[in-house]
């Protein structure tokens, strides 16, 4: 018996799907490009030359901690969570690096690994409390933020300590923009992560927990995993922070809780889970970092930095909401 067929074939190109489904991330990319152009114009009008190696290097190096913390935050967001303890974890990581790391390559590698594991352990605590304890992520991570901050101060009571020069040269070389390589690696990491079963599971859980469970995805494990990876990225961000500042400060990471959230939002990842991309967040983090230089060359007092970052965040999210609204309207 021949079965009836359903409908005419309608296919749009892969590219058209890609753009339609990544409006917020692409918007973040556009904003990044616009910010870069704006920056270059301001720079050349005030200094009479184009930005060069030095500017590129310092901007990239300064952006690295935010880029890494934003990627971690994004992964937690995608699982329909939020991690307010990012800043505390960066404090711990930063303090450990400044006090424990020795000048030998062995010590640097060893301590980097230990610190990343500490990040994973912190994330594990968050994840277990959220997924097994069934507590609200915002409250859990607010409490662990306080705990992590305390631990960091215990490790390094007074700002100080020293990060080995070799470590700084490796992660955030002050003479060359080599840190761009890490951003490239991060992009590669994300493209691969998106293609692992774990990556798919995070998206699925963020989309709809019940449906994900019905599809055979282990929800608890996935949510815990998201926080663990998030914690590792926060620890990595703390390492970059230590490397650029070359010394330790147990409170230097605090502000990154909020800026990592801002960068992830700016990059188009929603707090409601399952939608967004770390690539957008990388763009968002770069925008927020470059914005500071833009303000400098626009002759705006640096004290207004937070004002513009805040304004940018709200406007970008509102803009993204409006674009989404009109796209839906058009249909």
């Amino acid at each position, binding site marked *: 018996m021949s079965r009836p067929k359903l409908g005419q074939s309608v296919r749009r190109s892969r590219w058209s799907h890609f753009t339609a*489904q990544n409006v917020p991330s692409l918007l973040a990319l556009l904003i990044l490009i616009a910010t870069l152009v704006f920056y270059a114009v301001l720079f050349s009008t005030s200094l009479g030359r184009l930005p060069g190696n030095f500017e590129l290097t310092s901007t990239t190096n300064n952006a690295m901690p935010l880029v890494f913390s934003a990627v971690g935050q994004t992964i937690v967001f995608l699982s329909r969570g939020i991690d307010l303890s990012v800043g505390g974890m960066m404090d711990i990581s930063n303090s450990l690096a400044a006090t424990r790391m020795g000048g030998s390559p062995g010590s640097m590698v060893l301590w980097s690994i230990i610190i990343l594991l500490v990040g994973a352990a912190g994330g594990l605590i968050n994840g277990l409390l959220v997924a097994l304890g069934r507590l609200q992520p915002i409250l859990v991570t607010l409490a662990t933020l306080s705990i992590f901050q305390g631990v960091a101060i215990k490790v390094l009571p007074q700002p100080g300590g020293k990060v080995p020069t070799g470590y700084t040269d490796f992660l955030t070389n002050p003479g060359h923009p080599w840190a761009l390589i890490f951003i490239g690696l991060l992009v590669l990491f994300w493209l691969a992560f998106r293609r692992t079963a774990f990556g798919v599971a995070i998206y699925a859980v963020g989309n709809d927990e019940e*449906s994900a469970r019905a599809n055979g995805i282990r929800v608890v494990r996935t949510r815990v995993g998201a926080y663990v990876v998030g914690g590792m990225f926060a620890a990595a961000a703390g390492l970059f922070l230590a490397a650029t500042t070359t010394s330790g400060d147990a409170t230097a990471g605090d502000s990154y809780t909020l800026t990592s959230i801002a960068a992830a939002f700016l990059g188009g990842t929603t707090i409601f889970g399952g*939608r967004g991309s770390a690539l957008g967040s990388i763009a968002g983090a770069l925008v927020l970092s470059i914005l500071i230089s833009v303000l400098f060359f626009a002759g705006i007092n640096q004290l207004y930095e937070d004002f513009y970052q805040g304004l940018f965040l709200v406007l970008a999210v509102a803009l993204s909401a409006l674009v989404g609204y009109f796209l839906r309207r058009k249909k």
Partner: protein
Amino acid sequence: MTGADGTERSSPIIEAVGVSKSFGAVRALSEASFGAGAGEVHGLVGENGAGKSTLIKILSGVLRPDSGEIRVEGQRVELSSPQAAQALGIRTVFQELTLLPWMTVAENLLIRREPKGFGPLLRRREMSSRAEEMLASLGIENIDPLELVANLPLDQRQIVEIVRTVTREPKILFLDEPTSSLAMREVEWLFGLLNQMRGEGRCIVFTSHRWREVESVADRITIFRDGRHVETHAEIDEDHAVTLMTGRKVETMYPELPPADDEEVALEVRNLGGGSLSDISFSLHKGEILGVGGLEGQGQRDLFLALFGAGEKSEGDILIDGKPARIRNPNDAIRAKLGIALVPEDRKSEGLLLPMSVRDNLTLPVMKLFSAGGVIRSRREMRLVQQMVERLQIRLRGSEQAVATLSGGNQQKVLVGRWLLADSRILLLYDVTRGVDVATKHDIYELMLALISEGRSILFYSSDTEEVAHLSHRVLVMREGRINAELKGSEIDAESIVTAALREEDVPA
């Protein structure tokens, strides 16, 4: 497992024996038995609340029975989780879809069985071609595998869900109301698919509210009523089936509807459109119950919301007592001048504030009645609440009791009582008897009659067509957002409503 008429074929591949399940005080299944064999399409029919969905959930490992036995291929099994059921080759398409909305069709179809590439990596590019093949092999060409599920219309989502389940090669396939959102052609497609699967020796059990569909494809039909297995037949005519499903209570259950002779128009709608609605015109008289019928999802919900100021209305006029009314939000509709009230479909998510008290729920829209300058006069409020509780015979321990702890019927009474306090003259009752026990249904019917005898008017939708037929002076039959027919007086019965609802389907447009 024996059918009442001994239509036993081969031994059943899946069987439920004496299964019971209760939710709180409500008994969803009592000592229910059921069986279906390999190479069979088995229809499972019954009214809302007959226990079909509960049975399917138990046989899919989603719910655990309170008592009773489940056997697969003659072996007693414990279905402790959906995974346990899936391991035995059982797959289910539930009424609530389990698709992931912000992922593509391909990702949904291939979740947990994505094509593997290098190391732990999945091959995303191959996924779309694989999904394309899956869809094509089942004759589906109008769904783009790269589209997000959230962007698909409801019928296509249902198809994706079916495709995903079917392509996992289940030995036993359950489909709970798979056709409710499908168009005619899509139903044909599905039945073609089921026929093919029967040929492959699989066991298929499905539920549907549309008798003709069940009759056309099922090898055997099992009828459930009030959580029990009634009978299983290979051949059964519709009249007999309906009697079995309703238990011959049809005539006695509904109260006598007094004639509506008031010609005064309470509500008039002219050329209402917007959202899924187009060109809707009708009038509702004082003391009248105007039924709204039709298949589910034909715009009835949007109509009710639009009249209440909570939906999309881009064109047309609404007149109350002959005067044009401006209804921009529910607050406008509720105000005494208009006096419109809506009792919504889902009382748990749209009607009630479950953790709050009966008092709070009753008086939320009418706090003006007992407050001065925003300060609540508790005693005056309590008096009003007390009156309403007595009038509607709401059974409760005290007015501070949380609404969540009341039975479904009493919850519904609280919702209606709210609007009586508001002295609403036009009541929009949307599927108010869904999930309510028989005794309370009766209370609600009596209440409706009492309301119209006071000169109030009721616009009444129910997913139970029989109910619309018995409780309406006139019936508007909706189809695709329009009014397809208006039935009056002796024309009204369930059959004529269904006929009118399907009218255009027979004639290709």
